[in-house]
């Protein structure tokens, strides 16, 4: 059987904030066209991992390649080349306050392709309808939308330029279970339709099971388990077992200040 094509490869990546080691010789492979979900508790380095891939944070050591392009400690040209292939849904949607929803989505297109404002708007309206937002929402500002609608708009912006890679940062956090499930379905639908490689970070197990082809668990700056979604319940790993069942007693010790 041939080796699967690797879209994102992280090797021995170390990232510190002061004396605190967040990523500790971190290794991860994301295969092309798969949907990989990284789970883990709060503050274990999930967001830091994403930000290192995107070039928002620079790791102290190690290698990160996206489609073979080295991005760890790379220059702005490499980051721009990689970010041109990327779409990202942020935890709080991160829509630009000063733009309407349609302008937010169209920005994703015009920032990457030399298209007219009219065509960009048409693409934006099409992507908004893909995520179930009506035309009337297009000319509203982000402050006029509910949390779920913002997430949908953020998703529309992420897929607007038909990216090869999609990142989802805690896509269901702060949403009610019904809206969370709608977002999960939309993510699955968008990933299938675009054929993109998806990397999601979450601590919502329901979301992880629904979105993922494979799941990886991060703990103390390292991947401690990775496998197919169907295998997670039978993973012989006490860290995974404790996390997916949400037990307080076990090897995972949460730092609680009294």
């Amino acid at each position, binding site marked *: 059987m041939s080796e699967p094509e690797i879209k994102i490869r992280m090797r021995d990546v170390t990232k510190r904030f002061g004396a605190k080691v967040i990523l500790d010789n971190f290794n991860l492979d994301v295969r092309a066209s798969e949907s990989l979900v990284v789970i883990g508790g709060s503050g274990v380095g999930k967001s830091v991992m994403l930000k290192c891939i995107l070039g928002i944070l620079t790791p102290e050591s190690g290698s990160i390649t996206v489609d073979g392009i080295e991005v760890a400690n790379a220059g702005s040209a490499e980051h721009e080349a990689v970010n*041109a292939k990327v*779409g990202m849904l*942020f935890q*709080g949607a991160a829509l630009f306050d000063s733009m309407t929803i349609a302008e937010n989505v169209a920005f*994703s297109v015009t920032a*990457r392709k030399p298209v007219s404002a009219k065509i960009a708007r048409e693409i934006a309206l099409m992507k908004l309808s893909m995520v179930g937002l009506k035309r009337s929402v297009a000319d509203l500002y982000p402050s006029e939308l509910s949390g779920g609608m913002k997430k949908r708009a953020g998703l529309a912006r992420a897929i607007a330029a038909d990216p090869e890679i999609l990142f989802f940062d805690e896509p269901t956090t702060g949403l009610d279970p019904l809206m969370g499930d709608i977002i999960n379905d939309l993510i699955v639908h968008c990933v299938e339709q675009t054929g993109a490689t998806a990397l999601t970070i979450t601590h919502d197990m329901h979301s992880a099971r629904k979105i993922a082809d494979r799941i990886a668990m991060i703990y103390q700056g390292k991947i401690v388990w990775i496998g197919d979604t169907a295998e997670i319940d039978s993973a012989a790993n006490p860290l995974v077992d404790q996390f997916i069942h949400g037990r307080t007693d076990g090897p995972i010790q949460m730092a609680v200040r009294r």
Partner: protein
Amino acid sequence: MNPFQPIGRLAFAFLGTLGRIVVFTGLALSHIIRPPFYFRIIGRHMLEIGYYSLPVVGLTAIFAGMVIALQSFTGFARFNAEGAIANVVALSITRELAPVLTGLMVSGRIGAAIAAEIGTMRVTEQVDALTTLSTNPFKYLVAPRILAGMTMLPLLVFVADIIGILGGYIVGVYQLDFNPANYLQNTYDFISALDIVSGLVKASVFGFIVTLMGCYHGYYSKGGAQGVGQATTNAVVSASILILLFNYILTGIFFAANV
């Protein structure tokens, strides 16, 4: 505890901040001169900084001119030098008061707004979102604001020069009974191109300082609403201090040779 420890820590923190500001300034300048240029955004900020600051700058200038005329009258009357009031008003407005007061007023109005806007964008991940959308935040957020500040402040100061001198004229003519034609002739005869140009150059530098400090403190703000509030305060305080410092340095450069 070693008594030198806190001093050393403070010195390192100061040097660290200074280094960050220097790097930030270098990056900002490099993005100002390199394409792509976001002309629409530059235009929007020019309108915000230039046009919408006119009322506050105008009011500041007219009252400054009026006060200078009144104060110099009380002082000069003691040695019968009332005739020099027009000259003093013109000189102090064009060389000092218009650029400094405009800089300080714009620092409060624009510097704070820039820090709050970019700071909010930072803590809500909108700055990170720009990066993922293949848009350099320096090019999109910082460079247009600095460019607008550097070009609009001189225009504001030019308007403040005219309004400030007008304020002195109103007090001189309608309150102190100067002859209007003499007052204007005195102003015109005494004022030189260097007085106006030095004020405009100062204004451009102050525009750079105000927008740079707003962008810098906003860009590095953290910790939610409190962090954004802190960034806003820091932007106004640091810009105000730097304006006063650079006012001294520039005055020295322009006028030290021919005082």
